[in-house]
């Protein structure tokens, strides 16, 4: 397992390299230049200012040369400075990662806490009231846009009931209980929608497993229904659920720009979005690298989880 993990980590390097080349080329191809946005427009010496800034930022060099320079510094752990704020990338971007991780993790945990029991019971009690409720609720969850549900939550819990703040963020390291107040609504908005997908997946996966012979064998051996469901069937049924939840988490860690805007959540998604709008190349590069690492690591964790759920699964 250790060798497998190390091999997967080693695979991360070419993936990130290809990713960084693709992003560098993509950003280069975007219309509009950061120099234009920074120098302004009303002066009589715009060309001079543009030339100064272009040289200062090294944008007068060929794109491949800039890429190699950037890569060399990145390998030494120096992601550079934002061209817009002139502050280190670590300040601008990496400081936002905890907020994103906090929201995404709690959102996914919440969705699992809803989806796994609901999907399991819906499958075990197929065509019962529980099953119908689960199906209708999950269908509603899929159909309702996330931003609309978020706005409804804000209206109900913040504006009319006054129970929770409507937007903002407090770090859990500064004030844990205070941070929960700000977390509940965005996490619920994420959790509800993700739970809708996962519930349906868990249900269908459970139905599939329940029809297999090993379940009948377990029952014929006299195991209790609880043991058959939770010890044998659910563990196997969880593999696709874990796969999808892992991908959902990776997706959420990449940032949820709309929800971050609605809840004024200082996550990585908005930072990268703003960087793209302003053509802040180093920030975009660093952001994509971070997201790339997140996706690859999440995939690795998901694969490792298969083995925990079912020891017969072999990690190739």
């Amino acid at each position, binding site marked *: 397992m250790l060798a497998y993990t190390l091999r997967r980590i080693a695979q991360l390097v070419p993936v990130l390299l290809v990713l960084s080349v693709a992003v560098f080329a993509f950003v280069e191809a975007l219309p509009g230049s950061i120099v234009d946005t920074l120098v302004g427009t009303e002066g*009589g010496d715009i060309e001079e200012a543009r030339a100064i800034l272009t040289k200062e930022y090294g944008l007068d060099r060929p794109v491949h040369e800039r890429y190699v320079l950037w890569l060399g510094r990145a390998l030494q752990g120096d992601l550079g400075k934002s061209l817009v704020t002139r502050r280190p990338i670590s300040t601008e971007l990496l400081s936002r990662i905890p907020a994103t991780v906090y929201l995404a993790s709690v959102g996914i945990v919440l969705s699992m806490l809803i989806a796994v029991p609901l999907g399991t019971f819906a499958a075990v009690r197929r065509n019962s009231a529980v099953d119908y409720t689960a199906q209708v609720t999950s269908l509603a969850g899929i159909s309702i846009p996330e931003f609309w549900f978020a706005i409804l939550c804000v209206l109900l819990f913040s504006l009319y009931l006054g129970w929770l703040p*409507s937007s903002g963020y407090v770090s859990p390291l500064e004030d844990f209980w205070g941070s929960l107040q700000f977390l509940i609504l965005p996490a619920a908005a994420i959790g509800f929608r993700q739970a809708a997908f996962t519930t349906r997946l868990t249900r269908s996966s459970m139905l599939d497993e329940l029809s297999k012979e090993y379940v009948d064998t377990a029952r014929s051996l006299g195991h209790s229904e609880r043991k058959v469901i939770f010890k044998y069937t659910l563990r196997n049924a969880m593999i696709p659920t874990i796969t999808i939840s892992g991908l959902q988490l990776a997706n959420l860690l990449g940032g949820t720009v709309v929800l971050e*805007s*609605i809840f*004024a959540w200082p996550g990585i998604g908005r930072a990268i979005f703003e960087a793209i709008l302003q053509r802040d190349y180093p920030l975009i590069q660093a952001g994509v690298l971070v997201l790339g690492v997140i996706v690859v690591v999440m995939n690795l964790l998901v694969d490792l989880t298969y083995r925990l759920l079912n020891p017969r699964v072999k990690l190739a």
Partner: protein
Amino acid sequence: MSDEATKKGNERTRRSFLTATTALAGTALVGEHAFADARKRNPKRGGTLRFGTRDDSIALDTHRNIIYFVSHPLTGITGGLVDFDDKMQPKPAVAESWDSSSDLMTWTFKLRRGAEYHNGQTIDAESVKWNIERIKDPKTSHAFTRSVLSDVERVTVDDKHTIRFHLKEAHAALDINLIYYPVNLMAPGAVDTVDTHPVNCGPFKFKSWRRLDVCELVRFENFWETDSEGNSLPYLDGLIGRPKKEDRVRLTALRTGELDLIDNVAYADAPAFKKDHGKTFETYPVPQVGTAMMFFNLKNGLLSEKDNPDAHLLRQAIAHAIDHEGIHQAVFNGIGEISKGFYSSASPWHSKDIEGWPKFDPDKAKSLRKKAKGGDEKFTIIANDTFPYMQQSGELVHAMLKDAGFNAVLEILPSPVMLEKQNKGDYNIDSTANSYRLDPDGWYGRNILSSAPENRRRIGYKNEKADQIILAARKERDPVKRRLMYADVETLVNRDLPMLYTHFVPLMMAGNRARVKNYAVSYSGPWSYSGAGMRRTWIEG
């Protein structure tokens, strides 16, 4: 309250104590009744105001970046030689007085003694000179900031408290150009930390900033301004800026008590909010933050005389096709005024003597379009996606032109792409706006004058008569005469149609009545200005 604010709060208390005991001794002489009145007049102090804004600064260096004084929390740290009041008129700030030579070629400013930067460094003439030179240097300043000093040839220091500006061309309004927005002063000794911890000289000191999240400022105890009773300003202990881009998110946060004051209540929400929640929330209408308009590309293309002999006829047809009342109702929800010139009726520079643009007349628009060469050709309208009213005005104008039979296409674009298109002249109409200019030369001299870089870049308009008037107005001291001169320029603009003014951009702020006390907004939107605004606001409860 932060540790720093607490520490400074003690200093304040000591000073307050001295002020109070002096006042007490005085009032004891004039009797108990007078003392009671004096106490009543004294405002309460303190509290930290939570301010929700639509926008945020992009970085901390206040010379290199525009710190927009209407919607950036960071504005609170900025100060300069000259201030302005609620009518946007120049007032003494770090400069206590100033004078110009008879030929308007030299301006001399006497600095206030005892004025300090936030790090305690004295604001002397050498440090002001350093600031002006830094702003004039393209390596360290933004074009907008630098351009207001384009007439300044050099700056000399007469003595520690006297600085002299030597101009290339005579200018009657240099003092207005030196208002802290955009010519703000920063401590030369702290330039190394300008991108991480700016040290300026405004009413509030910088504490922390996370872009698009939070901006924390604390009261600058040694700010130069005092109220009429000698109490130092500002009254607030601090200010927390909370940029929340979405208008309704900001409004909801105000209603739930998470914010005390917000800017930019959406036009669609403003009337209902005022009606339904007027008892709980105060609204502060701002008549003119800027002016919206359609720029026509006269540099090249269908609407340019260079490429089309009937370009003026075509522009007239377009103007006849645009229903200003429709824009007033649909985009601005009936709030504010339709514009015939750059300055609204709330401004001292407003003039009634302007001949308006061609009136809305769809039939005439159609007949002129058919008559003009290129009337059936495709042309492009561009609009910036950053400001909703620019985008919505663009959409509406596009629909109106389609109704009049024009073959128009609309492109809603982000700022970098807009800039590229403008630089290349790759558009025909630009749905845009310009922020309020304190002195008219800031608009006419920098956007209508044929030699102005911005005119050359975006419009390409040239009218010799307009140029003569603008250059003459720059040297005219009498504001009444200047206003009439600019009215003549507006008439020429409305005839030639290098642009079509559409509407003044209004703004509504809103605050919690129970908490926000004594806040007033200046008529063009800034929240930090001499004599009122955020400087005389305090928080209760």
